[in-house]
């Protein structure tokens, strides 16, 4: 596996436009800056564009087996937070300009987008909580089949497998995407058929409650849709026209940049993390002149490709760790269904191998899930803060006529 897929596929792109939008370059220079501070302003904007591009170049240059992993998603949010901070500074330094038309409208649009992103953040927080539920079920599996907490050499017996299987069934139900839960429930009955003839009312309730449980874990109404939310964030997001760039002394460029970054980051989060009604049909029409367009478009393409892979098509999230959880639990489930007791040495070592893999996934989750949750919250806070600052400064100096 090539360590840097991205460099390979995009080498021609890195040369493109190591400068700002051409239109800016020509026209802003020609303009006898009426608002003042244009030179430093331009440098600021240019460095922002570069920073954004660098951040995403770095994200895009990870080997493909790290793409969409927990550490990668965390890096993505770091990049977002950096961009957001720099963007805030730019706005702050250009407060007078921000209040003038057409900047006021562009910035108001931007804040509208950010509010919509807040709901995505909350949905992602719920999704992380859900991953945590799966993690807990897998910990049961590990507890049943692992040997870490036993002081004596344990051999694996039927009891342990029954325990593990129970947790795996719960996990399989929990991981089903809502829309195909009915069909998959039938599938589960087939694959775990032998041990699932139980009709006890309490067990029935148990399984019903698992489905119910899922609806409990979302803090938004049932009609909320991540896909629609993403569309709303991206609504009317278009590269600024030349005259807009001129009229805003170039500021329209960072506003568009930040809007695109916001859309992409939210889209990638929805791609990775389970949430209600995921859907990735968002169009990115970023003109190639923008420095950061190539890494973002490339990442977009890669993630879309990932989502179309046969074994990922119905995944509840493209997060690498979810994939590994699914894989581990499926293999372990198959093993649990097929083993005979007493366990042959072959089988035993196979189980050991799977359990070891499971342990690794769980370690990764333990490491990164909580920091990710905190980061998502931080993104939420930053968005709120910058919007509040923006609205405040609007209110103070806004002339209605």
């Amino acid at each position, binding site marked *: 596996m090539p360590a840097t897929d991205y460099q390979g596929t995009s080498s021609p792109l890195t040369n493109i436009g190591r400068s700002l939008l051409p239109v800016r370059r020509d026209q802003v220079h020609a303009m006898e800056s009426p608002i003042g501070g244009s030179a430093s302003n331009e440098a600021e904007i240019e460095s922002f564009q570069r920073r954004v591009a660098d951040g995403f170049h770095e994200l895009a240059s990870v080997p493909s087996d790290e793409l969409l992993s927990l550490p990668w998603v965390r890096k993505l949010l770091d990049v977002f937070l950096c961009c957001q901070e720099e963007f805030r500074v730019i706005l702050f330094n250009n407060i007078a300009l921000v209040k003038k038309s057409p900047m006021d409208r562009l910035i108001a649009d931007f804040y509208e987008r950010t509010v919509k992103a807040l709901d995505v953040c909350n949905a992602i927080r719920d999704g992380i909580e859900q991953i945590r539920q799966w993690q807990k079920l897998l910990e049961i599996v590990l507890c049943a089949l692992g040997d870490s907490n036993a002081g*004596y050499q344990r051999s694996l017996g039927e009891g342990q497998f*029954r325990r593990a299987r129970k947790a795996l069934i719960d996990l399989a139900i929990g991981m089903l995407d809502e829309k195909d839960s009915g069909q998959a429930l039938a599938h589960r009955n087939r694959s775990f058929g032998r041990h699932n003839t139980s009709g006890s009312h309490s067990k029935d309730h148990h399984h019903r409650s698992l489905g119910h449980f899922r609806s409990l874990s979302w803090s938004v109404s049932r009609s*909320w849709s991540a896909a629609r939310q993403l569309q709303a964030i991206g609504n009317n997001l278009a590269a600024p026209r030349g005259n807009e760039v001129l009229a805003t002394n170039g500021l329209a460029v960072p506003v568009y940049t930040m809007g695109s970054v916001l859309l992409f980051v939210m889209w990638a989060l929805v791609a990775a993390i389970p949430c209600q009604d995921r859907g990735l049909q968002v169009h990115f029409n970023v003109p190639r002149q923008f420095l950061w367009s190539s890494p973002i478009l490339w990442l977009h393409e890669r993630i879309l490709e990932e989502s179309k892979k046969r074994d990922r098509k119905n995944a509840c999230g493209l997060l690498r760790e979810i994939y590994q959880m699914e894989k581990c639990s499926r293999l372990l489930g198959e093993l649990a269904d097929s083993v005979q007791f007493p366990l042959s040495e072959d089988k035993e070592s196979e189980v050991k191998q799977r359990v070891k893999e499971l342990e690794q996934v769980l370690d990764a989750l333990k490491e990164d899930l909580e920091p990710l949750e905190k980061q998502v919250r931080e993104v939420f806070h930053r968005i709120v803060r910058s919007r509040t600052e923006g609205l405040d400064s609007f209110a103070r100096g806004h002339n209605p006529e």
Partner: protein
Amino acid sequence: MELPENLNKDSNGYESAEKIILRWDSTASEDARERMIFETDRQEADLYLQAVDEIQRSLSNVSISTSSNAGKNANAVDDQSKVNTTIQIAMARLEDEFRNILITHSSALETDSLFDPSSSSISTPSHHELEEDDTLSNDDSSHHDLLQLQLQLQHCESSDSSTYRSTSSIREVDLMPSEAICDLQAIAMRMISSGYLRECIQVYGSVRKSAIDSSFRKLGIEKLSIGDVQRLEWEALESKIRRWIRAAKVCVRILFASEKKLCEQIFECVGTDIDDACFMETVKGPAIQLFNFAEAISISRRSPEKLFKILDLHDALMDLLPDIEAVFDSKSSDSIRVQAAEILSRLAEAARGILSEFESAVLREPSRVPVPGGTIHPLTRYVMNYISLISDYKQTLIELIISKPSTGSRYSGDQTTPDMEFAELEGKTPLALHLIWIIVVLQFNLDGKSKHYRDASLAHLFIMNNVHYIVQKVKGSPELREMIGDDYLRKLTGKFRQAATSYQRATWVSVLYCLRDEGLHVSGSFSSGVSKSALRERFKTFNAMFEEVHRTQATWLIPDTQLREELRISISEKVIPAYRSFLGRFRSHIESGRHPENYIKYSVEDLETAVLDFFEGYPVSQHLRKRSQ
């Protein structure tokens, strides 16, 4: 001889224990699947628990023997596997029993009984009650709506506060009967000692979570996204905020507190932190869902009408915070405490933002159409009602408003912003300064509006009316009066007095000018000394001017009866004596000529009566009536 006997006894105990466990293996028999032990057979339940203990004991024996034989003994390995399987069967059974007991006793909290019944009948003031003395209807109806909104808010507040008594402090209720708790405890203990802690938490969390969910539904706590909240009409949100405040109190002080107690009752004796893990597993999601709404409100768009509900929300959360901290006191519930505190500070920030937004809205309120009759402008009413409501929230706002208003100096030289001298206002709280600033800004705006009157007298009357209204409103509220202070109040009083004087000057100087002596005496004519024609002309001019003033100013309006009375008296005091003496001096000159009634149309009494028509706001139907003839 003793040893084998012991072993024998052990294995007997084990076998009968195993028999009980296997009898209740729900994967094996129909009967075992259908029946729940703890539900149907008390005695059997106890036997079952003893059996589990027995198996656990032998599990530790087996593991000891296994480790001492270092795995050489195939029998021991077999035994171990067998015991493990039995344990698993027992644990699966116990898990089901545990779940079943939980479900049997998981009904939603009886929330109805938690509320004072009077809370359901919040009285909404009727329309005309809110109109006050405002007989004027003009195009600025939006102000009236807002005004009504404010008054409504005030109303609901006062009737709500009494109903919260039942939820004013943490009040745990028993969610389950003690027998059920005993059973759950017994099962939990065995699941945990067999290493099934995770399963136990899992089951506990999932059942209790759905119990909380149904309580939430009873309390009317909805799942609303930030987008939903942004889209809702403010009026709809207001009632949701009201409901949320009530629900949050029940949630934190009763629902969550009771859940916590239940966790402690079941798990506290079983092991450290297990109760806490179960509690968080149960309430984390619901708590987040609960706070999401308040958070959404705290970041919603700011506008003046939202201030008071935001303050209500702030106060409610502030009041709840110590209890939130008490209920969520563990390390693992850190995020919930933090979120509550964050929302609180955001609400405070929103209140501050709204206040400064209100200030600039008052400054820039753009309506230009002059209010007919020079009466009180809807803006004045709105602003004054608003700031007297602010004074009702004084306690909170004094804490929240910590910086002075952003006034003058920055804009000095700017014609669009008034100045304010802070020097004279030393020692005032920032909140008081903001209130004074709002009044300053309001007057500034009103001064601008007064310039749209064509008649200078009416402009003065307009200012007089409005500033007088401001003074009355301030005097009417002890809190407001205290904050504004008598010094500034005196300034305001001076201002409307000045406007009254300016009015009189503008209207009456020219009228009274007709009654002067100069110009009537004919110099050189020794016999009479008074020019009859000039005198006639004077009377005619006076009559015409007075009639005109009477006709127009009867339609002007001074809504305050006392002020109206005072101004009329003041007019009478100037006009009547002047007329009387003029009449006294010159009446004979007119009456000696032809048609005196053409020149002396009005008696002193006629004028006195006519002045009573002034500022009533009605057009006079006839010309000035001559009563004395």
